[in-house]
């Protein structure tokens, strides 16, 4: 008797969630439609973005996003992985728990706080050491992003390493393998699927991070000159949305173009999270 009302209640709640998500994303598509209709898909690689002259090329922001993420990953992946290995394989058991707790808490620090720190510490430092006009640059954005995604990478890799039973390590050792060989031939291959999805998750987070990037990237809508110049102000997709959303009138082409930026972001993020799930669990037996 109880089943049917409960069932109806649950299914309707699920439907509410599903429908509201769908409606929101449908409007995302719908509002950006004028933009796609007017300029077409080729705007993705058009290099000019001047809203006042109706030039809405997305390439500078996409390049900026790519650079920021690339810098962040280059710093965060080796450091995070090393931190995970050190804390799971070298540190004594007692400290592991505390370190994990600490890193978990660090993962929860709001991004705007990181932005504040970057603005206050990182920018002057960059300004002095590279002799820049202001510190605002892709490098700054990448560095602060790396700090923010470190905990994600470290936690996922740490958990993956801890999940490998101690017998595996001992089996390796009794075959005469030294510490490095155990690490490279037993531990890392087995933990790799989880580490990989940790890295992809972190990539997604770096992609969508707004506040910290917005504060330090400088919001300059043009391609880096030359393209590998990461010391100049630039723009990422998220920082553009954050900066210009307040100015764009609802219904205008500018608004529509910004929504299109959001759509591009969402599509990239969806691809990343689909990639991240595509793995089998690493546990044996």
């Amino acid at each position, binding site marked *: 008797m109880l089943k049917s009302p409960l069932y109806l209640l649950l299914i309707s709640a699920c439907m509410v969630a599903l429908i509201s998500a769908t409606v*929101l994303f449908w409007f995302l598509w719908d*509002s950006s439609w004028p933009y796609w209709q007017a300029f077409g898909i080729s705007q993705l690689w058009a290099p000019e973005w001047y809203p006042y002259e109706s030039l809405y090329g997305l390439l500078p922001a996409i390049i900026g996003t790519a650079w920021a993420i690339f810098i962040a990953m280059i710093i965060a992946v*080796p450091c995070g992985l090393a931190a995970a290995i050190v804390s799971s394989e070298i540190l004594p058991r007692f400290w592991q728990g505390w370190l994990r707790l600490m890193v978990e808490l660090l993962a929860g620090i709001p991004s*705007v*706080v990181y932005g504040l720190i970057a603005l206050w510490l990182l920018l002057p430092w960059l300004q002095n050491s590279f002799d820049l006009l202001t510190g605002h640059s892709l490098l700054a954005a990448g560095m602060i992003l790396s700090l923010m995604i470190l905990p994600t990478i470290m936690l996922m890799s740490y958990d993956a390493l801890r999940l490998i039973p101690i017998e595996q390590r001992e089996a390796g050792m009794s075959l005469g393998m030294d510490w490095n060989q155990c690490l490279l031939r037993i531990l890392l291959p087995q933990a790799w699927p989880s580490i990989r999805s940790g890295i992809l998750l972190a990539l997604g987070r770096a992609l*969508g991070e707004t506040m910290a990037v917005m504060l330090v990237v400088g919001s300059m809508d043009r391609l880096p000159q030359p393209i590998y110049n990461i010391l100049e102000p630039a723009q990422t997709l998220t920082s553009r949305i954050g900066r210009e959303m307040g100015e764009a009138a609802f219904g205008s082409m500018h608004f529509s173009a910004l929504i299109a930026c959001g759509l591009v972001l969402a599509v990239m993020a969806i691809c990343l999270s689909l990639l991240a799930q595509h793995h089998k669990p690493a546990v044996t037996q």
Partner: protein
Amino acid sequence: MKAVLILLALPAILLPLACFVYIIIQALPALNWELLMGSNTTSGSLFAGTAGTGHGLWGQISGSLLMMLLACFLAAPLALSIALFHALWASPYQQRMMVILLQVLQGIPPIVYGLCGLIVLVHLLHWGISLAAGGVILALVILPLLSSNAIHALERIPIAQTESAKALGLSVGAVIVRVWLPSAWSSMLTGLLLAMARALSETAPILFTATVFSGITWPDSIFSPVTSLQTHIFYLAQEGSNAHAVDMAWASAAVLLGLVLCFSLMARLLRRYEGAL
């Protein structure tokens, strides 16, 4: 190899910690009771010098907390329903689809939710920049997190336990209330606390849908704009030349950090307690 790894790992562990300590040091001079409880009603325009950077953060704190509570009230029942549906009636295929969908939603940048909310809630539904819009958007942001936590919490209950309860002739409702909730409540609460911390720290989605810079201590209705700590930090951070504003920014950051850590620390402690059971 070991040495190289340790060398690489050191900044990863020390730098975030240093940041944390730095915030506390910066904020200490500005932090006091009056700051927390004082309201900031000095009216004035955003760009007129010290105006808007008054002496209290109570408005911002209450705004943040209100929005967080609204989001949780909206999202928690939905998440619970989704988890129960997942556990009770979904076929294996549906279960898999639900998990994938939740992960995809979780991966979408919060600012995209903000955009969606701006179009639908603020403009099409004419809610305007409002507490309600912020709450709904934050609810959507935390919904995937909450749901997957709740699903995991229910999955961890041993099947044998459920089956023996059913073998005693308990109805579905009784199984939920008498078997599932007692063993899953703590991990669900952990999930809720984590989601609260998340809702408190999200800034981008509410930046142009729910908050204004100053002038509001307590919103008149659910459809009026609010101030929040997160966005307050952002606005103040941009007034780099104003020493008072910078002080206030650090103080706000410390308060926000305190609130967020409060929730996430509670969650971790609860998880530890649960692990000890």
